[in-house]
């Protein structure tokens, strides 16, 4: 028997360009025909697309009012409050990257990428000052500052979570203002990407505890609780979101005492939260079902009661498993916030619509505005899903 020398087990040479082309594009006669036809079409489409974007399209409805798309009619003098919030969020993303790594690393890098993109936004608008551009870059740098702090060993994941929750409240107060110190900015002039983010993040954060309770309720052995949880989940999942938004925004106020006025944003957020909670419950239920029975037995064996078994053993494992699907749900919710346009909220899409309506010269520029909005949604959703998929791949989730 001969022993294998290093010569024998050397990996094969990486295929050259020609070999790659032959294998992936021209493996047989019909593949070659397909490649040529499709290739010609693609080249033509890309050429026409690029020509239209740079020479054919008139982007003035987009470039003339960039701040409107970002923050709506939020007063320009107070815009530093949004900047501060953004800086805080960027910093915290950096810290989370340092603490948890993994998906947070991908999210932080995506955020940094988007911030740099915003800093380089091609617009001649005087509103979009050099300060704003410099700020965007510094926010991106804050991510890396946060990372170096988050790597310190004394920052535990519990502290980070606590800081996240606290800062969400701080941001809400900062944005809205409070008695005397900061002028109150009523939510009806919030708009654009800011409002889209408030709806999506608010919806996912608020629906999380409700969804977990519903999932536990649905799996409960107690028939009454499991019946009501299942009924809620199935009813909400069976109707369209626009119906629920319509209910919470238009029908619900009809039946409040005349002196009670609930903010329009809060009403929409209520609807979005209820809707999202039902889907969250199903995601969490998936995680609960993935917990092996032995975990229950072990918990029982060391004398934990139902409550402690759930809180200490089952939930921490289940919730860790469902993080990717919660990210997926967040992306869906982020896209679904466009429906809030139907109940009079000026989120990104309706900002675009109102700009188009405000100026008769823009009537023929609908394509440009909607393509821009589509691109914004695409960049955010794609970077989120890309980050989450990269992490899943690294963890081997879904691999056989």
């Amino acid at each position, binding site marked *: 028997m001969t022993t294998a020398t290093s010569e024998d087990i050397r990996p094969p040479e990486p295929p050259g360009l020609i070999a790659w082309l032959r294998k992936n594009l021209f493996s047989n006669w019909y593949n070659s025909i397909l490649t040529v036809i*499709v290739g010609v079409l693609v080249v033509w489409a890309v050429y026409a697309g690029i020509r239209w974007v740079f020479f054919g399209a008139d982007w003035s409805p987009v470039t003339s009012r960039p701040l409107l798309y970002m923050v709506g009619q939020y007063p320009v003098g107070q815009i530093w409050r949004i900047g501060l919030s953004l800086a805080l969020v960027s910093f915290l993303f950096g810290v989370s990257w340092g603490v948890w790594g993994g998906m947070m690393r991908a999210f932080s890098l995506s955020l940094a990428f988007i911030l740099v993109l915003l800093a380089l936004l091609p617009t001649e608008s005087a509103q979009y000052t050099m300060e704003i551009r410099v700020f965007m870059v510094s926010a991106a740098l804050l991510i890396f500052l946060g990372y170096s702090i988050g790597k310190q060993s004394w920052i535990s994941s519990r502290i980070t979570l606590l800081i996240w929750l606290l800062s969400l409240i701080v941001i809400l107060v900062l944005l809205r203002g409070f008695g005397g110190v900061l002028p109150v900015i009523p939510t009806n002039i919030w708009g654009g990407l800011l409002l889209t983010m408030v709806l999506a993040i608010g919806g996912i954060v608020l629906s999380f505890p409700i969804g977990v309770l519903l999932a536990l309720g649905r799996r409960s052995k107690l028939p009454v*609780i499991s019946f009501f949880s299942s009924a809620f989940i199935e009813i909400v999942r069976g*109707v369209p979101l626009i119906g629920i938004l319509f209910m919470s925004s238009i029908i619900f106020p009809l039946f409040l005492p005349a002196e009670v006025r609930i903010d329009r944003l809060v009403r929409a957020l209520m609807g979005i939260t209820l809707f999202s909670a039902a889907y969250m419950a199903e995601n969490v239920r998936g995680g609960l079902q993935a917990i092996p029975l032995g975990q229950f037995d072990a918990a029982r064996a060391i004398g934990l009661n139902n409550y402690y*078994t759930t809180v200490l053993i089952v939930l921490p494992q289940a919730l860790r498993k469902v993080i990717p699907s919660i990210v997926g749900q967040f992306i869906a919710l982020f896209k679904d916030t466009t*429906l809030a346009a139907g109940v009079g909220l000026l989120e990104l899409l309706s900002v675009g619509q109102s700009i188009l309506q405000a100026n008769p010269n823009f009537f023929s520029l*609908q*394509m440009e505005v*909607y393509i821009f909005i589509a691109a914004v949604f695409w960049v955010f959703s794609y970077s989120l899903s890309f980050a989450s998929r990269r992490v899943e791949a690294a963890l081997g989730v879904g691999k056989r």
Partner: protein
Amino acid sequence: MDPPKFSAVQEVRIGKESPLWRDERIISIALQTVSAVVIIGVLVWVVTNIVNAAEQRGLGLGFNFMDSAAGFSISESVIPFSPSDSFARALLVGVLNTLRVSLVGIVFATILGFIVGIAQLSTNWLVSRIALAFVELHRNIPLLVLLFLWYRGIFTRLPSVRASIQWPGPVFINQRGLYLTWPIFTDTGWIFITLALVGIVAAALAWILLRRIREVSGRTTNFVGVSLGIFVLGLVLGWVFSGGRPFDTSIPELQGFNFQGGIHLTPEFAALLIGLTTYTAAFIAEVVRGGIQAIQRGQLEAAAALGLRESHILNLVVIPQAMRIIIPPLISQYLNLVKNSSLAVFLGFPELFSIGKTVINQAGRAIPVFILIMAVYLIISLVTSLLLNIYNRRVQFVER
């Protein structure tokens, strides 16, 4: 949460020594009673509030208004409708329009979705990249933005009737929508349809019967060929007995200021249909790709080792197993499409939700109409998931 019933660890009851407040049976009953009382209490409170508010504001809760004249016209309808028809009929028009756009959308989305899903797995690099680009483009942009792109960006900017774009073949596209060639059945058309249907039923029966014979006796039966033959025979007989002219093709022609003949799709319908179809197709493509990829390599190798032909491997090994994985998420995409058709309210296509909104404005009966609309969506969802559960129970692997 409670441990599943078949947990291996048995409850240890200490009987009398256990105080009442720690007895699990007592806790369970108490918990259920309390939650039932709270939930029912809240429901009763909400309903009484609604009834009171409705009385105070003169908003009726009954359905007696349904027979009165609607007083508005509907731009497109499957059944004849005039403003003097009742509200009930208006809502029926809405339901029919929802079903029309949903069914057509489901058919096209399935075809496109399967094509794109399989193309994603193509060995041709270019084809699989384009399929991937299609999926990523549609999944990361909100449906509403896509619908606006199609409707406002393209369909409202098409040329006028006189300058219609003619697609290769007798298909015309202009501001007023799409004009397609369509068969119109002649007097003898019913004979053709009846015989064709009989042929389909007979072909299906033959398929099932011959397959069963083969499964039971092991004899080779050419069930595909026989069924196809019966089906074609039905068509041919229908053609002959209807005098060789079962239908005329009606070609759209420009007469005066408008097209006559053929079938006309309004821009709203066409934009909604295209938007829903492409959006849902992207999700279906992912479902199909996932289903096919879930087949383990070992299955293919085992089939090849048995000496099965390529087509047999596909038909007998891959497709049956992939379908089992594909069907449940596929159906839930269908349901999403039905629910998403409610976005037509933004385009002005008169489906259930937008007609419902008009009825609410006209009749001033928000609650009953709203409940009715949601009930229709809910019934569609629940019936579908019921059928899906039955199917799942039938095809599930029996775990041994």
